[in-house]
């Protein structure tokens, strides 16, 4: 301030004018103070505005902004209902994409689903926190009620409902979509769009679900299989396994089972078919090539023989794998119907249309398909383990 000593009244030194009895602050100092205070006021004001406009970390549910999308499958293959209920599979019935598009985290987000009257509201998932910008994908794998599923014989619409809640929300939000459950016997060979079908395999994109129709533990099937495998070491002997294969063919024929074409009325779509479970084929004494192949496969599995269903263009053929050699044997199972075999293919079979003849015929068909690269082997044991369990 005073850098030199002022000795006289009325003398001015360094901005301080000494008058009689007073010292006055000069203009320079005032200007300096004004500038300094201006800078400080503006700076602290800016800091105040910046601080006041920061998003609050305090939870305020009114500021929650979520984008919630419910997506569903159009059709459910009801026969594979167990697969849709298994969260280790990718066969969700519905899924919800939740994105936090707000500026604060969402807490305790709970979501659950209900499929018509086939399920109750499931316990659902809870997401403790969904951060701003975060996306959550939640899947619905509903445990469908078997008794109610068994009653679905034709394509049936059901309402799939989804509700969600989070901390601070007054009432849970709910959305719904209509989905269709196919009849329990309806099978869709492929879910690929028409334009996406390019290869032979594409026509049977859902082939793994055929494993759900192969039901070796169902009572009628088991009883019939007991007769087929009676007295034979089917798990240990190749000869006995092959004999059981022949037995199944002969006993189904003895049961009066006929080969039928699928009635048009059962059509559920372009690439679909009404497929019978083994006990239905046995009880109704008729079946398509696929029904007969499935029935034979189930009987073989019931007596401990590894089996396959071979899908070739326009046809299905049952096969077995012998326990010791691992050799594969197929059989033309539609020729269980002796009348059909003789009327349509009398030139290639004897009047008896024996099981052995049908094994030989099937071998040719399989080899032909293999060389053309147009064959799919449905391995039920593999698919059961992979989650496509028998329906009943």
């Amino acid at each position, binding site marked *: 301030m005073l850098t030199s000593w002022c000795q006289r009244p009325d003398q001015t030194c360094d901005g301080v004018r000494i008058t009689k009895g007073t010292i*006055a602050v000069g203009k320079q100092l005032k200007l300096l*103070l004004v500038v300094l205070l201006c800078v400080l006021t503006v700076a602290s004001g800016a800091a105040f505005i910046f*601080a006041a406009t920061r998003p609050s970390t305090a939870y305020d549910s009114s500021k929650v902004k979520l984008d919630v999308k419910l997506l569903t499958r159009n059709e459910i293959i009801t026969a594979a209902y167990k697969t849709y209920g298994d969260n280790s599979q990718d066969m969700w019935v519905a899924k919800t994409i939740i994105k936090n598009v707000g500026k604060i985290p969402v807490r305790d987000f709970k979501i659950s689903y209900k499929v018509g009257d086939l399920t109750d509201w499931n316990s659902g998932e809870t997401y*403790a*926190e969904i951060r701003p*910008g*975060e*996306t959550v994908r939640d899947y619905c794998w509903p445990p469908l009620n078997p008794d109610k599923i068994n009653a679905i014989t034709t394509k049936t619409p059901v309402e799939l409902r989804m509700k969600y809640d989070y901390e601070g929300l007054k009432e849970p939000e709910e959305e719904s979509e209509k989905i269709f459950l196919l009849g329990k016997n309806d099978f869709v060979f492929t879910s690929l769009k028409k334009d*996406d079908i390019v290869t032979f395999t594409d026509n049977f994109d859902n082939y793994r679900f055929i494993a759900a129709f192969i039901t070796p533990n169902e009572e009628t099937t088991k009883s019939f299989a007991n007769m087929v495998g009676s007295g034979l070491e089917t798990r240990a002997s190749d000869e006995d396994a092959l004999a059981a294969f022949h037995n199944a063919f002969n006993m189904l024929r003895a049961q009066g089972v006929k080969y039928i074409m699928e009635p048009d009325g059962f059509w559920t779509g372009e690439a679909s078919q009404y497929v019978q479970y083994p006990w239905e084929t046995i009880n109704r004494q008729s079946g398509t090539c696929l029904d007969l192949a499935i029935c034979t496969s189930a009987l073989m599995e019931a007596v401990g023989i590894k089996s396959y269903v071979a899908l070739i263009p326009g046809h299905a053929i049952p096969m077995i794998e012998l326990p010791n050699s691992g050799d594969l044997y197929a059989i033309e199972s539609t020729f269980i119907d002796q009348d059909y075999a003789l009327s349509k293919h009398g030139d290639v079979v004897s009047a008896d249309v024996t099981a052995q003849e049908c094994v030989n015929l099937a071998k040719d068909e399989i080899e032909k398909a293999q060389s053309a*690269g147009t064959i799919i082997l449905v391995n039920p044991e593999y698919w059961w383990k992979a989650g496509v369990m028998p329906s009943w």
Partner: protein
Amino acid sequence: MVSMKKLGIITFMIVAFGTLLVTGWCSAADKPTVTETYKVTINDVGDGHIVDTIKYSKDDYATIKKVQNKKRGFLTRRYTSEDTTGEVVGFNTDMDDATHSVIITYDKPGMAYNEKGEWILYGYSTKPKEDSGLTYTFEETSTINSEFTLFTDQVFKTTSEVTLPASATGANYVAADKALKYQMPPARTLYGFWAEQKAALSVTFGLLTLVFAGLLVFVWTRKETVVPVAAVVPGTVAGVTPPHDALSHDEAGAAQPEKGQHQFCQHCGSKIASGKSFCTNCGSKVD
């Protein structure tokens, strides 16, 4: 099997096309394995950005390219099927002739799951071969039979490289879950210091603004700020006695009154008329 028959026409065309493909592919079936580099970059909120580079031998690439040109989207139709609805964003496929590679890029929102601050990235069945902090490298050799091999068996050597967010900590591979797990800072810290201390800082800076503004007004409205001086006497200002050496002789001289003005006696303080050598009051000598 009526439906099968109805499919006959389509099947015939498909079989013809399939046979063409298989024929073309068979010659390449014994060629070296396909190498795939699958790079995943995870952001702070668990979204993944994927760059999948599948490098074929020259012949295999030519076959693949032929198919891709004939049927656009064939290779990658699984990425856009019903199963992946709503999961893949910004999908793109490039065919790189220079490296004989198919390059697929896309984003997958919500790829890592947030479980109470612990983030989980599933889908890694083998132990990582390398772990350099936030980047994990997995290697796997497997036989693939899919669109990318035109439904023939091909051996893929896949190197997956996963890069976790820069702020991730405690990353580790959990074999039981076949997953990578890591921690992220609590959500509130993502807002930063200012948001976390919003209330305290708002009050502090609000008050400071008022104080500074008040002071500014106060100073601005002062025309002159006057400070009372107790008694200005020779040798003192505002009642403070200067040190003896406060003024040098020259400086003191510089402070001498001009001619015609009065001096004051150093001893008694009486006025001394100009030009006098002695005080008329006390008789002291005037310097």
